[in-house]
């Protein structure tokens, strides 16, 4: 381990007394981290957009297509049975990951976006009527805004927005005031992709439940960093994406309480979601298959299961403590640079460091950092209302994963100094 890596480990030891976390060892699991970009070692700080994949996930996809490929829930032949078992094992791992009580509550979807759209259309169009209200927060990703706007347009409901303060924290009292007898649904992010804020989702859910209002939690940015226990949270729906959780793209999960999923009509029609079809009447399949029309992303689902298994081998407390220490280091390093303003300074934060630099557009920061081999995201992060709230057209965003190092934070800070030099 490097000196800086040791420093962080010691810091973690000193702070919480938890087990050390060997970043150099986990880095070996991610082959892409050995790549060079523009002749410089890759410094990948765009994990909120998508995370890198460990070798075991890459090998799983490869092996699946090489020796296991077959359709699931259909064939009686050997390969089909194997693929079906592997896919359903993955569902079991997801259930365990979320601590859901039953695999019937685990619906495979394309990603968080599809999960939210599924709920908006299936639950929303059935149970939300004209004059009803849907609550979201001011820090939502477009994928937790637009599906609800579409629904509200369709049924004549009203979309209302819980405001946030200048630190990017949700105003819980304002939320309480917005909850009323017309509120029929609440959908909020667990962690904000643009600000990094960790929302008090348990409290949000409790407050909604007191009025009998169901809650969806957009867990896209939380699942890779926090412990998620859907029974403890008592959320009604929880959605996350595989590709941000070190798994493949094109697969994600919608958790839903069985009682709600049972009461909801199918989202899409097709194969696999039926138990019998005649031209007169179709009987739908049981949960979760009722919501899984068509051949799914089989390799993706199996790959996600392996990613979850991989994560399970790393102590969550140690990993989270390391990530927190790294975020603190990055926040300190960037705050020390004159002209840098951090957007999103909530007390409870995870992984995300959004910032602007005086006199330099984020797009130019992105280009110069790229030249140093540093991948960050610049732009509105699919959260244009957040940008408007903070009065900036865009931000630069560094987002961390447990395989990032203190040296990479130093490289980021160094590159920002270089940006300042270019724009002198």
């Amino acid at each position, binding site marked *: 381990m490097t000196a800086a890596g040791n420093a962080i480990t010691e810091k973690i030891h000193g702070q919480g007394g938890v087990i050390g976390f060997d970043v150099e060892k986990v880095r070996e699991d991610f082959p892409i981290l050995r790549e060079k970009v*523009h002749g410089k070692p890759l410094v990948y700080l765009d994990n909120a957009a998508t995370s890198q994949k460990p070798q075991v996930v890459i090998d799983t996809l490869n092996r699946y297509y090489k020796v296991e490929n077959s359709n699931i829930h259909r064939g009686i032949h050997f390969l089909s049975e194997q693929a079906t078992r592997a896919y359903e094992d993955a569902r079991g791992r997801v259930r365990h990951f979320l601590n859901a009580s039953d695999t019937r509550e685990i619906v495979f979807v394309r990603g968080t976006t599809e999960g939210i759209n599924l709920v908006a259309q299936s639950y929303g169009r059935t149970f939300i009527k004209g004059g009803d209200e849907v609550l979201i927060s001011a820090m939502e990703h477009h994928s937790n805004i637009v599906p609800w706007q579409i629904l509200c347009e369709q049924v004549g409901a009203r979309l209302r927005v819980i405001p946030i303060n200048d630190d990017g924290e949700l105003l819980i009292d304002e939320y309480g005031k917005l909850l009323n007898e017309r509120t029929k649904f609440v959908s909020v992010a667990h962690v904000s992709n643009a600000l990094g804020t960790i929302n008090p989702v348990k409290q949000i859910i409790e407050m909604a439940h007191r009025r009998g209002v169901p809650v969806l939690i957009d867990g896209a940015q939380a699942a890779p960093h926090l412990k998620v226990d859907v029974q403890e949270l008592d959320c009604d729906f929880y959605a996350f994406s595989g590709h941000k959780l070190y798994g493949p793209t094109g697969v994600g999960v919608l958790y839903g309480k069985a009682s709600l999923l049972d009461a909801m009509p199918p989202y899409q029609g097709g194969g696999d979601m039926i138990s019998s079809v005649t031209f007169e009447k179709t009987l739908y399949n049981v949960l979760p298959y009722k919501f899984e029309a068509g051949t799914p992303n089989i390799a993706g689902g199996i790959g996600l299961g392996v990613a979850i298994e991989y994560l399970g081998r790393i102590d969550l407390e140690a990993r989270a403590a390391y990530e927190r220490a790294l975020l603190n280091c990055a926040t300190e390093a960037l705050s020390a640079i004159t002209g840098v303003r951090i957007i999103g300074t909530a007390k409870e934060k995870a992984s995300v460091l959004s910032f602007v630099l005086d006199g330099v*557009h*984020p*797009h*130019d920061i992105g280009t110069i950092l790229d030249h140093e081999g540093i991948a960050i995201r610049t732009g509105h992060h699919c959260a*244009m209302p957040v940008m408007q709230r903070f009065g900036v*057209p865009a931000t630069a965003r560094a987002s961390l994963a447990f395989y990032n190092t203190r040296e990479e934070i130093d490289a980021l800070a160094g590159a920002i100094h270089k940006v300042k030099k*270019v*724009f002198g």
Partner: protein
Amino acid sequence: MSDLSELYQQVILDHSKKPRNFQRLEEANRTAEGYNPLCGDQITVYLQLEDGVIRNISFQGSGCAISTASASMMTASLKGKTKADAEVLFKRFHCLITGAPDGSLDPSALGKLAVFSGVCEFPVRVKCASLPWHTLRAALEAKRETVSSE
């Protein structure tokens, strides 16, 4: 490897920090808006067009260094030019920033705009440099809807 200093040439940095013709044009008889949804760059181009001649031109908006400098230098190079001149210049400029080989176009005819030659090495920045020009074209054609770089 592409060179950063080729992209951020001194002239470009100068125009991005102190953009020329950066104001609303009261006499404008044509305006158009441009927007790059990828990075949030937004620009309004004002034209005073008389008998096919650009009597005056200005712009407003917010954007990165490349789009701001491109807009600034575009306005500086188009005053007094005809609509046809502007079209030819845009074509040449576009070839320059996309690195499209076109033997019939003489790069020296671009004058100061030739400083944008480094952009072609940065494919994601081509839209930044071309947004002001697409917006200009919309103003010349009196299109009403916002131009998108997408």
